[in-house]
C-alpha cells in the first residue's frame, strides 16, 4: 500500500526577484546575484495513513515551510510531494482538487487566520458550500455539526471572531478545517499561542478527532513536550534539513544526533530540584549562509574535521530510526 504522504527530496529556495536594471548589472558582473535562502534542503519523509508525525526544530529550521509545501500553499523548488503515491501534477484536475481538499491546515494565531469581518457561520460554511459538500438549505445544520464537533456552541454561529476567546478561536479554525472533510491535518504551532490550561483542551480535541475521524496529522511545534505527547513519530529539523527521525519513544529515550540530545537536555522541566542550566554554545546560524558540511558543526561539542566539509547523510541507526551524523560511521 502507498503511504498517505511521501515527500521525496524536496527543496525550497526563496530569493528576491531582480529588477531589469539589476539583472543587467548581474549579467555584466557588476552586482552579485540576490542571496538565496534554502528553507528546505533535500528533505524526504513519509507519513502513513492515520499516523501522527511531529516535526520539531527552532526558528529557521524549515518546519513551517515543509508544512506549507505539503498543504500546497508553497510550491517545492525541487523534488516531489506524493499523495497516496501520486503527484498532484499527474492527476486529473478534479482528482487534484479533491486531493488538495483532503489536506487542511491549522495555523498558530487564530486571530490572524480568521477574517474579522465574517461571521463564524460564513467562515466555517463557505468552503463546504463551494465544494458541494452541503447545500444552501442544509448549510445551517452542517455548520452546527462542525461547531459541535469542535466543542463550540452552535448558537454562537452568528457571532464574529473577536467575540470569542483565544481557545475558542482556535476551535473555529479547527471547525473550518474539518468542514471540508479532510483526512489529514497540518497543525503549524497550533497550540503555541494558547495558555497552558487551554492548550490541554485543544490537544485533547486533536486526540479525540483523531480517534473519531481516523485523521492523519503533521504536527509542527517547537515545544518538545507537546510533540512527545501527541506524536507517533518525531522528525527533528535543523536549518532546512532533517537531522533525525524515530518513533517517539525511541527518540526521547535514545536520541542519536548531538542536536537532538542538546534539545532534550535543555528542555525546561517541572522537576522542582534546583538545577543549573547548561547551554549549547552559539547562535542559530542564518539560513542565508548556513555553515558548510554538517549545519550543526559550529555548535556541536563533538564536531571533527570531516563535519566541516562533508554533509552527513540521513542513515538508519536502528529500527525505523534515522540520524544524519558522521559519528555513526
Amino acid at each position, binding site marked *: 500500500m502507498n503511504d498517505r504522504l511521501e515527500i521525496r527530496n524536496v527543496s525550497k529556495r526563496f530569493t528576491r526577484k531582480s529588477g531589469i536594471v539589476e539583472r543587467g548589472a548581474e549579467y555584466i558582473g557588476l552586482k552579485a546575484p540576490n542571496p538565496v535562502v534554502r528553507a528546505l534542503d533535500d528533505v524526504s519523509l513519509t507519513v502513513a495513513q492515520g499516523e501522527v508525525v511531529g516535526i520539531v526544530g527552532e526558528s529557521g529550521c524549515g518546519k513551517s515551510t515543509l508544512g506549507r509545501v505539503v498543504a500546497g500553499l508553497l510550491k517545492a523548488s525541487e523534488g516531489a510531494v506524493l499523495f497516496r503515491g501520486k503527484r498532484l501534477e499527474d492527476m486529473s484536475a478534479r482528482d487534484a482538487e479533491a486531493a488538495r481538499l483532503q489536506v487542511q491546515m491549522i495555523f498558530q494565531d487564530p486571530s490572524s487566520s480568521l477574517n474579522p469581518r465574517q461571521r463564524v457561520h460564513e467562515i466555517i460554511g463557505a468552503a463546504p458550500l463551494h465544494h458541494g459538500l452541503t447545500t444552501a438549505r442544509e448549510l445551517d445544520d452542517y455548520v452546527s455539526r462542525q461547531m459541535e464537533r469542535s466543542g463550540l456552541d452552535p448558537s454562537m454561529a452568528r457571532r464574529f471572531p473577536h467575540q470569542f476567546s483565544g481557545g475558542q478561536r482556535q476551535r473555529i479554525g479547527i471547525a473550518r478545517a474539518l468542514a471540508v472533510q479532510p483526512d489529514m491535518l497540518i497543525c503549524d504551532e497550533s497550540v503555541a499561542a494558547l495558555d497552558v490550561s487551554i492548550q490541554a483542551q485543544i490537544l485533547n480535541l486533536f486526540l479525540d478527532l483523531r480517534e473519531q475521524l481516523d485523521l492523519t496529522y503533521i504536527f509542527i511545534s517547537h515545544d518538545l513536550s507537546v510533540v512527545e505527547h501527541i506524536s507517533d513519530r518525531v522528525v527533528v529539523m535543523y536549518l532546512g534539513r532533517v537531522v533525525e527521525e524515530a518513533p517517539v519513544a525511541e527518540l526521547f529515550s535514545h536520541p542519536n544526533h548531538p542536536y537532538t540530545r542538546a534539545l532534550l537536555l535543555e528542555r525546561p522541566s517541572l522537576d522542582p*530540584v534546583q538545577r543549573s542550566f547548561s547551554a549549547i554554545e552559539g547562535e542559530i546560524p542564518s539560513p542565508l549562509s548556513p555553515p558548510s558540511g554538517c549545519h550543526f558543526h559550529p555548535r556541536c561539542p563533538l564536531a571533527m574535521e570531516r563535519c566541516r566539509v562533508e554533509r552527513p547523510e540521513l542513515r538508519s541507526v536502528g529500527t525505523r530510526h534515522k540520524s544524519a551524523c558522521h559519528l555513526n560511521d
Partner: protein
Amino acid sequence: MTALLEIKGLKTEVVSADGNVTLIADINLNLAAGEVMGLVGESGSGKSITGLSIMGLVDKPAQVTGGQILFKGQDLRKLSEREIRSIRGNRIAMIFQDPMSTLNPVLRIDTQMMEVVHAHEAISKQAAWERARDALGMVGIPSPEERLRAYPHQFSGGMRQRVAIAIALLMSPELIIADEPTTALDVTIQAQILSIVQKLARDRGTALIWITHDLSVVAGLAEKLSVMYAGRIAEQGLTADLLRRPMHPYTNGLIASLPAHNKRGSRLKQISGTTPSVANMPRGCAFHPRCASATQLCLSPPPLEPVEGRLLRCFHPVTEGALS
C-alpha cells in the same frame, strides 16, 4: 533581617467615573536579597500588572489604589516621581518580553547604554563606556567593544535580549523584575539566557522576580513561587513544595494539564472553561466556575491564609497531590 522587597495588600484598578474595575488586589510578596521568585499565571491573571505596579509604571486609566510597596523599608508609593526615577533603572531594573520594543532602533547600543549610566551617575564618558562594555561581556556577548557600535537590528533575537539584560545590569540593581523575557526565544537560546541569569543572581546577590506563564521555566530557577489567578494570588510558597504538592485546585490543574505529566498519547487532564475577564469577574472565588470541588461556600471570597508553610486562597484545598 528586613526583606529587600515587601508588598502588602497591593491593589491596582482602572479608575473611571462609572466605577472602578479591579485588575489586581490583595497582592502580598516578600523577597530577600538574592532570592528568586517566580510569578506564574495565564494571560489576564495580572502578573504583568503586578510587575508594572511595583515599578510605578502603570499607565492611566489604571492606577495603584491601595497597599504598600516597601523596598528596603521605604514605601515606593509615597515617593515623588523624581525620587522614584532615581530608583527605577538604578536599584530596581526591569526586563521586558520583547527586546525590540525596549531598545531604540535608531540609536547605537553604546549610546543607549551610556545614557542609562549618565541618568543615574555623574561619571566620565570613558567610565560609562567601560561599564557598558563590561555589562555586555557579562551576558556573554562576544567581542563587546565592537558590538557596542552596532544598532539593535544587527543583533539576533537572543542577542537583543542579552543586550536588554545587560542594560538592566548596568547600575548593579538589587532587584530585577523580568517579564516573560524568554518567551519569544528558541529552546536552546532560552537555556542560554536562563543560565546567564541564574549565574548573575547567584554571584551578585541580585533578587529576581521572574514573571512567566510557563511553570517549567521557573521550576529550576526560582526558590519561591507565586501562582496568580484573576488578579489575585492563589497560592504562594517554596517552589519545591508547590510543585510536589499543589494545594490550590488551580495550581493542581495547571500542573496536571502539562503534557509531561500525562501518559504519552492519552487524554490530558484539563481545566474546563476559560479565564474570566476583569469586567466580568465571578462572585466569590474567581476560580469556582472552573473548579471541581467548588461548593456554596465559594460564592464568598476566600482569604489568603497560611496553610502548611505556604499561603493559600482556597476553602477546599486539594488533599492528594496531582503528581502522585
